[in-house]
């Protein structure tokens, strides 16, 4: 939720709201977007309610063109099917849509990410004797493989931005350079990582994630401290445009409707 961090700037918004707004802005109108639950779903629905009313939201439960008025708690909530353009089976969504190359953007979260945008959502510690067993792969490996590009949204912390993943659940730019291309996947891999501190994009050559923009109030030192590897920083780091009043209002209204719907059903 958006209430645990107070505003980093004077604009009257939280760092989580800044993250959602920055992520939403990355989604272009009309894109077919395969949406993960949680932060990606929040950002995708904010985009749909602001600058990208024609984006087609796809959820792995088989809903295509979902238009939820409230944020779903799960990827298969009834609100996703209610006004969808179509509802198809799970094999169909993965085979005919994702694998066939009909998805423009895969929008993912993750427990751990490394400098090449590889993702771990499986286990902390060893696989056979895990310290923490996480939920696992879900739809992520094939979204990361076959969406034309992948955007990620997650909070930047040393325990989630790690030097070495305990397990590779989903492939980003693998070992950097051209190493992803050798795998034969259709998709280009991660193009943007949006955090609560800024925006990272892969270097065109090495594919290492590079800090290219800082949200208002965030610093390079803060971003470095929040990263478990030696963070690469662009020569010129931009400052993210703060959220507009409209973006904040729409996001808060989305959360208010979601909270009211949950309260009404419990």
């Amino acid at each position, binding site marked *: 939720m958006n209430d645990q961090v107070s505003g980093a700037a004077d604009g009257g918004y939280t760092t989580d709201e800044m993250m959602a707004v920055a992520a939403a802005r990355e989604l272009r109108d009309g894109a077919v977007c395969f949406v993960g639950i949680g932060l990606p779903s929040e950002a995708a629905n904010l985009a749909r309610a602001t600058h990208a009313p024609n984006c087609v939201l796809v959820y792995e439960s088989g809903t295509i063109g979902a238009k939820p008025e409230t944020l779903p708690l799960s990827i298969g909530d009834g609100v996703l099917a209610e006004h969808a353009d179509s509802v198809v089976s*799970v094999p169909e969504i993965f085979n005919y849509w994702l694998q066939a190359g009909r998805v423009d953007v895969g929008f993912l979260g993750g427990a751990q990410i490394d400098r090449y945008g590889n993702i771990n959502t499986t286990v902390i510690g060893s696989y056979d004797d895990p310290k923490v067993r996480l939920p696992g*792969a*879900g739809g992520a490996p094939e979204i990361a493989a076959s969406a034309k590009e992948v955007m990620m949204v997650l909070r930047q912390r040393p325990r989630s931005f790690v030097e070495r993943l305990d397990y590779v659940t989903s492939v980003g730019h693998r070992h950097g350079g051209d190493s992803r291309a050798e795998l034969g996947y259709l998709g280009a891999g991660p193009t943007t990582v949006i955090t609560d501190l800024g925006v990272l994009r892969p270097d065109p050559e090495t594919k290492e994630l590079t800090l290219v923009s800082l949200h208002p109030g965030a610093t390079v030192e803060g971003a470095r401290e929040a990263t478990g590897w030696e963070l690469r920083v662009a020569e010129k780091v931009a400052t993210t445009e703060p959220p507009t009043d409209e973006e904040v209002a729409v996001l808060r209204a989305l959360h208010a409707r979601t909270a009211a719907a949950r309260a009404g059903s419990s």
Partner: protein
Amino acid sequence: MAEVTTLREAVAEMVEDGDSVALEGFTHLIPTAAAHEIIRQERRNLTLIRMTPDLIYDQMIGMGCAEKLIFSWGGNPGVGSLHRFRDAVEHGWPQALEIEEHSHAGMANRYVAGASNLPFAVLRGYVGTDLPEVTSTIAPITCPFTGEQLMAVPGLNPDVGIIHAQQTDRKGNVALWGITGIQKEAVLSARRAIVTVEEVVDSFEPRPFQIVLPHVAIDAVAVVPRGAHPSYTHDYYDRDNAFYEAWDPVSRDRDRFGEWMERHVIGTEDFDEYLESVREEGAIEV
């Protein structure tokens, strides 16, 4: 040929110790009543198959029904961990749980191959991930026509497939609509199929995105109203999101979990009594 029977009889006749059992329903139409009946009848050493184990397998694992789990995403959707699943994997409680782990695409294709009576399915995925390192049922294969490297996964043919649906007619045909996930494949890949439904109708009305499973594909149909709770049944009742959130603290603690299951599942005769029992406890909308 589908026989309309009670859930108790269907489970007693068709689910045996040591069976591989797939209870499917992708967030929607999760067959909770059937899972509870398997727990009540104390089935043991089951291989549980399900893309998203969800609360029902958390409960079955915690109650000692399972020796193996084949799955692709083991969380409490939108809430966090499945604590009984984690306790089994991390600490072997109440017994060690062997896991066979795939992605959703891999699981979906395994069911499709099983339903098609094919030994394996191919997909473009898994390459470069650690999944093939830990899961023996993922193997590379070369396309005989193009030479492309792909991944193969074996077909799934569960001993028993179980789903929940909206309606059955007098012949035992079954209609479901809304998000229909992997249910068709779960039924058609299984050696025996049990379906629980909300109600019996004389004939089906056309609905958007409806599928009808012919009675010849189903062995037993049992009427269990609200049988998917806390999941939902499209056009009947909503997902009980508060229950999913309330499950987190209940399942976190072994004793509290055991008492909860004893009070609401073991200590009740059937799903109607279970619903009454959790309703009396309040805070849960059923």
